[in-house]
Structures are given as structure tokens and as C-alpha cells.
């Protein structure tokens, strides 16, 4: 078991927006979280990622949090940040590095190179982050997530602001990581049609309810809904 959510209740200031969430996913799964605006997708992801306190319930990973990669939504600070691609990717190793070691070890440097290759950003590794395109920036942040976690990655709307081609590239990269490298993926997304194609499971949030199931079950449900 890779992630197990039980009796989870999420919300703000003690007021729940979603109650009694229960689901499990195994390692190697690819879970897409979808739903209308304001149904709590981001809140759920933040709660899972330890950025927001749950009102009630348990979230347990099969591994330590330090084994998890996280790709946040782009912040304003990052947009014009003067840092090279490799400087940013390198910070992915910090979750495992000892606090009293001031430099990156040889092993960590190899890991950084590995992630840079995996995400096809080798040719821009010495470039400045703020001079990259949106799609390239997203790959850099994915590389950073990969460095810290070779087997579990959480992403919050990673393709916002990307054009269709860059979006497709990004999804295909994620699919490869999932299929070939067995990396578990949890992703919040807006574009249901193109994103869930790659998923193994879908969590569909509604205003006070949710659906959780495999991609097949979800497609069946949607087809059924359309026939009615």
C-alpha cells in the first residue's frame, strides 16, 4: 500500500468542505483528482502534502514523507528567480541530506544528473530559471521532485498555463515515469479529457460527495451518466 486515506475530513477553520474521505492506492498507481472549481481538490492535495492540517482523519504513506516528491503550483516568487536549473533541481536532495553537511555529495550530484536526464532538460541545466518557457520550468520542478523521491510524486495542476503541445509532452513524460519507472503519481488536474487517459485511478470530487475508482469504473460511470 502506498497511500491510505481513512475517515479524512478537510476544510478551513474547523468547517469541513469534504467529509469522510476513504481510499487507498497501491504503489505504481496513477491517481487523477478531478472536479469542479471549489470542490476542494487543492485543499485535499495540500492536506495530503502536509501543507494544511486535516480536520479529522488519517493519511498514511507506506514510506516517509522524505521519500515523496512534490510539484507545487507556480508561485509569484519563482517567476523571476535568479537561479540556474541545476541549482533548483539540486534542492530536491535536501529532504534526505543531513542538516550539518554544507555541500552536495558525489552521490547526490549523480542523482541530480539522473533527474535532469530523465526530464530532458540536460541542454538547459545551466540556464537561468526565469528565462525558461513555462513548459521548461515545469520540467525543472518535476526534476527537483524526482531527485527527492524516486517512487512517489504529488502534483498540483502541473499544466496550468501551458499550451496544448507542452501539456501533451508533460503528460507523456509523467506517463513514462509511471509506466517505465514505476513511480506512483497523484495529480490534481482541470482538463479531465486529456489527463485521465493516463491514469489508473480517478478521484472525482463533488460539492459534498466524491467518487473513487479505477479509470475503467469511472469511464463506465460517465458513459452511464451521459446515456440517462
Amino acid at each position: 500500500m502506498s497511500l491510505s486515506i481513512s475517515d479524512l475530513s478537510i476544510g478551513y477553520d474547523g468547517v469541513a468542505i469534504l467529509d469522510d474521505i476513504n481510499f487507498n492506492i497501491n504503489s505504481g498507481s496513477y491517481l487523477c483528482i478531478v472536479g469542479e472549481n471549489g470542490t476542494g481538490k487543492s485543499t485535499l492535495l495540500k492536506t495530503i502534502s502536509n501543507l494544511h492540517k486535516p480536520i479529522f482523519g488519517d493519511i498514511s504513506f507506506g514510506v516517509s514523507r522524505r521519500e515523496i516528491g512534490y510539484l507545487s503550483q507556480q508561485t509569484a516568487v519563482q517567476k523571476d528567480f535568479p537561479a540556474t536549473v541545476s541549482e533548483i533541481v539540486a534542492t530536491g536532495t535536501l529532504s534526505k541530506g543531513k542538516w550539518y553537511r554544507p555541500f552536495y555529495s558525489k552521490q547526490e550530484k549523480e542523482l541530480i544528473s539522473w533527474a535532469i536526464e530523465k526530464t530532458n532538460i540536460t541542454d538547459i541545466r545551466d540556464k537561468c530559471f526565469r528565462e525558461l518557457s513555462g513548459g521548461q520550468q515545469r520540467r525543472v520542478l518535476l526534476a527537483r521532485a524526482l531527485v527527492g523521491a524516486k517512487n512517489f510524486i504529488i502534483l498540483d495542476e502541473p499544466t496550468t498555463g501551458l499550451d496544448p503541445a507542452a501539456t501533451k509532452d508533460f503528460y507523456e513524460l509523467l506517463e513514462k515515469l509511471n509506466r517505465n519507472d514505476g513511480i506512483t503519481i497523484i495529480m490534481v488536474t482541470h482538463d479531465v479529457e486529456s489527463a485521465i487517459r493516463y491514469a489508473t485511478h480517478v478521484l472525482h470530487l463533488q460539492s459534498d460527495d466524491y467518487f473513487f475508482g479505477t479509470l475503467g469504473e469511472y469511464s463506465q460511470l460517465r458513459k452511464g451518466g451521459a446515456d440517462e
Partner: protein
Amino acid sequence: MTALELLRFPFVQYALIVSALMAVCASLIGVPLVLKRYSFMGFGLSNVAFMGMAFAIVIDATNSLAIVMPLTVAATILLIGFGNRFKKISGDASLAMITVGSLAIGHFAINTFSMRGNITADVSETLFGGMRLLTLQMPDVWQSIALTAAVIFFFAFFYRRIFAITFDVDFMQATGQRPLIYELLLSAITGVVIAMSMNLLGSLLTASLIIFPALSAMRLFKSYKTVVIFAAIAAATCSLLGILVSILFELPVTTTIILMNITLFLVLLAVDTLRKILV
């Protein structure tokens, strides 16, 4: 008198050493502040330090740092360390209130309770510095050497974490690290530097040293490491030049240093803009 002859005077030597060292400290803490969009924080916190200094003047404290330091460090930790975690009042509003409020309270306290004769001189010196910088003693020099050594050690040792909390706190939190520890540590050091710098250089120069070198460096350099190193070098150079120029031409010392920093920024801005147009 030439610049070389000036260097023979101990008071000039002290001023050069102390201002260059404080410039290095202030510009180092300035880089993460500016990048986190806390540029104005430097000014707000210098004003808090001003208020502390005013209290020290009122009670005629022998060691004003004993009051300025804890006050400034506490304000820094509250504003920067915890600032984005407890958003009851927006960061922008609380900063504005603190900037204006501490200036007013400080001025009020000096004017109302101070037993000393020349109030205007006290206020002017605390805000704009100058006299203090040209009348430094050996202990002041040792103090700034110790502070600079500590700040440089902190930056070198925690360089990767400082970078990480500047770039993305959420990532650290989500991957099971403890960014709050490093944020608190950095803001404590920021508070110490601002208090010391305000005591030696006045609050306006302190605020300038936090923003201008960092902004200048960001115009020219593309990696975090080079930005940090260049900011420190640029700040120290502007201070050294500023002091020599101001003594030679009888100009006000702290504002001359600030104008040096502004000039450097404008030149680099022009270079950067030209480069973008030409390429």
C-alpha cells in the same frame, strides 16, 4: 588632501572597515529578503530599530544595543519568520503599520521624555547616521568583524537551505523537512544585522544596503550563488568609495554611500536593458 593621506587617520580606517563589513552583512541578508518580496521589510525593521534607539536615548542607556537588538529581532521573527503562517492581518498592512507606527512612537518618545539637549541631532543621527560612523572606536570594529564572521559562516554553512526556503518553502514542508527552523534562524540573523547596522550606520543606510546590492546583482547575474557573491562585493565597494568621496568632498557620508548604491543599480539596469534590446 588625497585619498591616500586620508587612510592614515584611524577614524577613517575604522569607518572603512566597519561600513564595508556591515555592507556585506546587510547585502547578504538582503538577497533572500528581496527575492521573497520582503524588500520593504528592511525599511520597516530599521524603523523598529529606530524606535528601540529612541527608547535607549530616553532612558539614557549606556548600551543602546541591549534595547535595540531584542526589539528588532523579535519584530523580525514575528514579521518574517511567522509572517506568512498566521495571516490574520495582511503582510502588507502589518508592515505599513509597523513602519509608520514605530517611527511615530520613537519620535514621540524622544521629544516627550528625553532629558538630553539636542533632540533634533539625536533623531537625525539615528535616522541618517553619519556622526557615529566617523567616530568609531576599536570595540566597534571588533564587533562588526565578529558579526560578519558569524553571518558569512551562517550563509556558507546553510547556503543550500537558505536557497531552498527562499525559492520554495512549500516544497520543503511537503517533503518532510522543517523549513520553519531555517526561516526562524534566518530572520533572527536578519534582526541582529539590522539592529547592529542601524546602531552604526543609521536606519536609512541600513535599509538601502538590504535592497540595492541585491537588486543590482539580480540585474546582472543568473545564478543564486553569483547573485549572493556579487551583492556582497558591490555593497562593500560602494561603501568604501562612498566614505572616501564624502570625506574628500565634504559630503554627508551615509547618503553618499546610498547614492553610490543607487548609481550602481541604475548603471546595471541600463546595461541589462541595452543587452535585452540588442540581443
